[in-house]
């Protein structure tokens, strides 16, 4: 299906062409692409210098959605910062919740119970599926293929229904808690989820058929946005983009967390490192995510979902209203926050776009001294200028679409 001969058309202007341009004295045209452009699903300004259709210089400007996530986190208790993480990557919020809470748990030295880990894994993979669907659908729509978007949005609705049944919210989930989750999984969740997963897969396959063999889509995706594997690593790119370049770096496999070490799934790897391979890697990751969820539903253990640790988990309401110690406990936890020992941790999870790390420095009080989010979108965006310079103007759109820059996460 893939053409092994395809090459990157993004070549710098040199030789005769450069000499001809020198003679003609045509100044390049300056084009402002963004900040709010209908062909980009993210708020970013790209300044392009064009020679005809060719991009000869470019500058990428982010920060239009900067709202001081890290400053805000420094002034809230650890448990108060969880809702902020929903707003980082708003198309896959449970992944962000999990990343933050696992970093704080590492700081406290808490291990949540097994059932909690399984439910978190299900939540994470549902988020990843929703994110990939939105990324592929939006990117296809920007390439004027509107129909797949409708299929994928319908599939995403089914995924969001499952997220809704897990935690009662669709997008701003606020699902994961430090040392646990907000609510136990509903008893009928497996029966609820299986038909919806099948239906979502069916819709996904339909969109796949509409796009993968579509000549227009392939011409716009194949060979564009090329960056070699070494360059991808040097520029700090992670996630589907790096894997499309042939490097099987996946935090779920390299540093297994939650229950990924026990599950059976594959990490798809591309070979051409262009937009089409990034698209194919996302297609396959969607199927692997579904596989992970089905395995988790089968193996779901019984037991509690919250860690039994009074430093982070609030006592049940019945005990708070009837017993003095629990009342004091709850009061202290709400007004002072749980206090981890001083120190610093870095914990990373594999988000939909790459490695999402949280670096938390604690001074021993209830509020973090510093809470740094290593956002995959930010690092993935940094080589964009390098990827589009030398290519055609029309290639900017699929390249940007396949980076899947999420403003909330990139600009924080």
């Amino acid at each position, binding site marked *: 299906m893939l053409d092994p001969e395809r090459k990157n058309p993004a070549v710098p202007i040199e030789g005769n062409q450069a000499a001809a341009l020198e003679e003609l004295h045509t100044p390049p045209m300056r084009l402002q692409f963004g900040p709010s452009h209908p062909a980009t699903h993210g708020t970013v300004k790209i300044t392009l210098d064009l020679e005809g259709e060719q991009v000869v210089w470019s500058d990428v400007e982010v920060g239009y959605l900067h709202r001081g996530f890290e400053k805000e986190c420094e002034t809230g208790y650890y448990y108060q910062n969880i809702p902020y993480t929903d707003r980082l990557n708003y198309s896959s919020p449970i992944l962000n919740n999990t990343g933050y809470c696992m970093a704080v748990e590492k700081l406290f030295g808490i291990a949540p119970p097994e059932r909690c880990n399984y439910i978190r894994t299900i939540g994470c993979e549902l988020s990843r599926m929703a994110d990939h669907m939105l990324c592929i659908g939006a990117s296809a729509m920007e390439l004027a293929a509107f129909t797949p978007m409708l299929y994928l949005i319908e599939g995403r609705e089914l995924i969001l229904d499952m997220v809704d049944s897990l935690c009662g919210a669709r997008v701003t989930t606020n699902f994961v808690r430090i040392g646990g989750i907000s609510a136990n999984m509903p008893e009928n969740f497996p029966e609820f989820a299986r038909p919806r997963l099948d239906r979502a897969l069916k819709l996904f396959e339909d969109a796949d058929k509409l796009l993968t063999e579509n000549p227009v889509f392939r011409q716009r995706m194949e060979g564009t946005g090329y960056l070699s594997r070494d360059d991808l690593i040097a520029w700090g790119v992670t996630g589907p983009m790096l894997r499309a370049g042939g490097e099987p770096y996946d935090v779920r496999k390299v540093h297994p967390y939650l229950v990924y070490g026990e599950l059976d799934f594959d990490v798809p790897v591309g070979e051409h490192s262009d937009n089409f391979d990034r698209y194919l890697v996302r297609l396959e990751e969607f199927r692997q995510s579904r596989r992970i969820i089905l395995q988790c539903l089968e193996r779901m253990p019984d037991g509690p979902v919250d860690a039994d640790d009074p430093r982070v988990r609030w006592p049940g309401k019945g005990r708070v209203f009837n017993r003095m110690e629990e009342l004091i406990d709850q009061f202290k936890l709400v007004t002072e926050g749980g206090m981890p020992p001083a120190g*610093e941790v870095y914990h990373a999870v594999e988000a939909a776009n790459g490695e999402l790390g949280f670096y938390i420095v604690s001074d021993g009080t209830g509020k973090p001294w510093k809470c740094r989010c290593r956002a995959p979108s930010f690092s993935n965006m940094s080589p964009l200028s390098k990827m589009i310079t030398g290519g055609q103007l029309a290639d900017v759109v699929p390249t940007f679409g396949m980076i899947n820059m999420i403003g909330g996460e990139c600009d924080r």
Partner: protein
Amino acid sequence: MSAEKPDEKVPAAPELSPLLEKVVSRLGDRVLEHHTARGDDRIHVARERILEAARILRDDPELSFDLLLDVTAIDYFGQPDNFEAKLQVWDRNRAVMRRLPQRRHELVLPPRGPEPRFAVVYHLTSTRLAHRLRIKCRVPEDDPKIPSVTAVWPAANWLERETWDLYGIVFDGHPDLRRIYLYEEFVGHPLRKDYAKHGEQPIQEYVGPGAKEPRRPH
């Protein structure tokens, strides 16, 4: 509910983690301190020697830290690493702002400690060997400069720009050190601890090209 004494300030235990053993043997006296806490390995390097340490870490086949994940800074605000003093900076700053809103940029600062104020933090990993390392370099407040590692890892380009933008640390040798999130006319660096959380400032007037031209009406 009492905060425990930090476990990281005690001198490094004699037994090193396997990774730190390799790192210390390759870097030699460039490593000022090393710690292993909560499964994370961390070394301290003098800021003048960060570039040569970075080259060794990337090029040595047994270390091969080819993926720079993150560059950021910590503002210790005059505190030593162990955070013995509890600061009430936010309460104090908020009180000042409420009392004298017109002087909101002149905030009360606690006394300065003996350690340099900032620490620049690098997180590295290796795609081949799958180990992680954290490097810390202390940077003083009166001369907030550190060599840029952009030549070793191009990924540092935007990350260092972000650190300059939010912490005001200058990266010497950076090819394009501009602000990245905020606009060029912004005054101050908002993630510094002495920048109040509610320290709003009026939008500064644009002074770049085309500033004098009349704005198009909405």
